[in-house]
């Protein structure tokens, strides 16, 4: 083979080689893309199933909480009303009997109210503002502490999953304040900050050092739950200065 022919072959093979390298590059990119796409899909499915599981857990917890409340109401309120009615009906005095009928009517109203809470349909008909109002009223009625709700907006049209998570997180935050902080006052503010709509829960209770890592999973759970709906959970507390929780709602 002459020198000239060799040079020609080198040129041809170099062109073929470069073409081959490029083809390999593009084909491998497509394969890597397919692989990553499958991994991504798997990850998305996992996130979706975790989200569904969280929602299911939340529904169960809300139902559990509701059943506890109904049990307490049946024992402390309706049971008392029925006993009182029974006593009044036992009397031969007509005014006592009329009083018994009134008490019975009141008991029926209470039972109707409770029966509505047995399924989760109330979640859809209730706004977050109404829910917070009811929770704070219940706390105040027990005489445990003073409560205030200050809202700049009404949260009505939230998707059911977001509403369930918010309800549960608010419920749990209030339960924690009552159980662990012994506050004199609980204040909830709903306002629109630069970051978006926020719910701010503040108590003036014992507080704790929030900079220290806690062993409990309660706060981590609440944070994770807010994140599953695209929101944020922030907690700041210092010993003796109460606790502040900020829930940032998803946009």
């Amino acid at each position, binding site marked *: 083979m002459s020198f000239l022919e060799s040079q020609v072959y080198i040129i*041809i093979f170099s*062109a073929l080689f*470069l073409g081959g390298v490029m083809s390999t590059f593009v084909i491998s*990119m497509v394969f890597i893309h397919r692989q990553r796409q499958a991994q*991504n899909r798997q990850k998305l499915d996992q996130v979706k199933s975790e989200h569904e599981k969280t929602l299911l857990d939340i529904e169960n917890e809300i139902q559990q909480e509701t059943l506890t409340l109904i049990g307490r109401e049946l024992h402390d309120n309706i049971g008392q009303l029925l006993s009182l009615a029974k006593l009044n009906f036992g009397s031969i005095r007509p005014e006592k009997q009329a009083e018994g009928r009134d008490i019975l009517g009141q008991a029926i109203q209470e039972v109707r109210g409770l029966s509505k809470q047995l399924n989760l349909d109330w979640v859809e008909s209730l706004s977050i503002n109404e829910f917070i109002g009811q929770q704070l009223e219940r706390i105040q009625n027990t005489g445990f502490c003073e409560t205030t709700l200050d809202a700049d907006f009404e949260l009505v049209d939230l998707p059911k999953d977001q509403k369930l998570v918010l309800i549960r997180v608010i419920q749990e935050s209030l339960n924690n304040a009552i159980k662990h902080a012994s506050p004199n006052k609980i204040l909830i503010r709903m306002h629109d900050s630069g970051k978006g709509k926020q719910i701010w829960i503040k108590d003036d209770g014992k507080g704790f050092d929030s900079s220290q890592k806690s062993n409990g999973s309660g706060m981590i759970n609440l944070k994770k739950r807010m994140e599953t709906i695209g929101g944020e959970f922030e907690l700041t507390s210092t010993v003796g200065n109460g606790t502040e929780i900020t829930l940032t709602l998803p946009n």
Partner: protein
Amino acid sequence: MDSRFVQAFFISYGEFLIPLDLFFIIGVACFIKLPKETRADIHYWLPFLILVFTAFYENMGAYTNYNYEFKASVNAYLGNTEYPKFNLWLNNITKRGIGVILYLFLIKSWLEPSKKKYINWMIYIFIVVVVIIQYSGIEPLYFNQPIIFTFGANIILIGSGLYFIGMITHEQYLASNPLRLLSFWQMTFIMFTFTLTYISSVAKFYLYEVNPVLGESLFQIEWIMQLINLGILTLTVASPLMPGIFEKEPSYEFS
């Protein structure tokens, strides 16, 4: 029609110029039909601009072969009296200069915002390098410019590489099928064009002198690749008129 005109436009490079002009006509017709807001979108007007620009300089090249006097006078103006038949000055200004910058802008339009700055830097460096090499006399404008071509081709290959990296890492690209993305085909053929024409472009003179037949065959590859590229660009311009064939480009949603 003058025989030199027929020779320049239809016989010498007819198999290349006729399909190129057809793509140009189809591209113009489709672009006119696009809604106003689509025409204002860089993903449509930039491919159209490259198509129009390519049609312009390739036809201009044919015209310089028809009008020898014009070609010779430009060569003489640039200081080239040795080879008055050359029209490499046109190739160097358009294809290897402005063309490379336009292709870099096209690559940039498909990249995620964080990677666009790399292309900006590549464009600045390319302009500086071209100016230095040209004005220092290392590669005169009227002669073959292998260094400038090598540099331009390499930055285009790096830019295309950035697109492919985005394709396998960016979540929006991972949600789509690349084989149904026009950007994927654009990048693939730009890469192939600059790779397969690398040797023929760099060794242009050597091939003409040593083995013109091989040189001619390698240049055929260059023309075919350029036609495929223009075909993809025409398809890009026409894609809004053919809904359902291609997927929505993920880069449209980059914020």
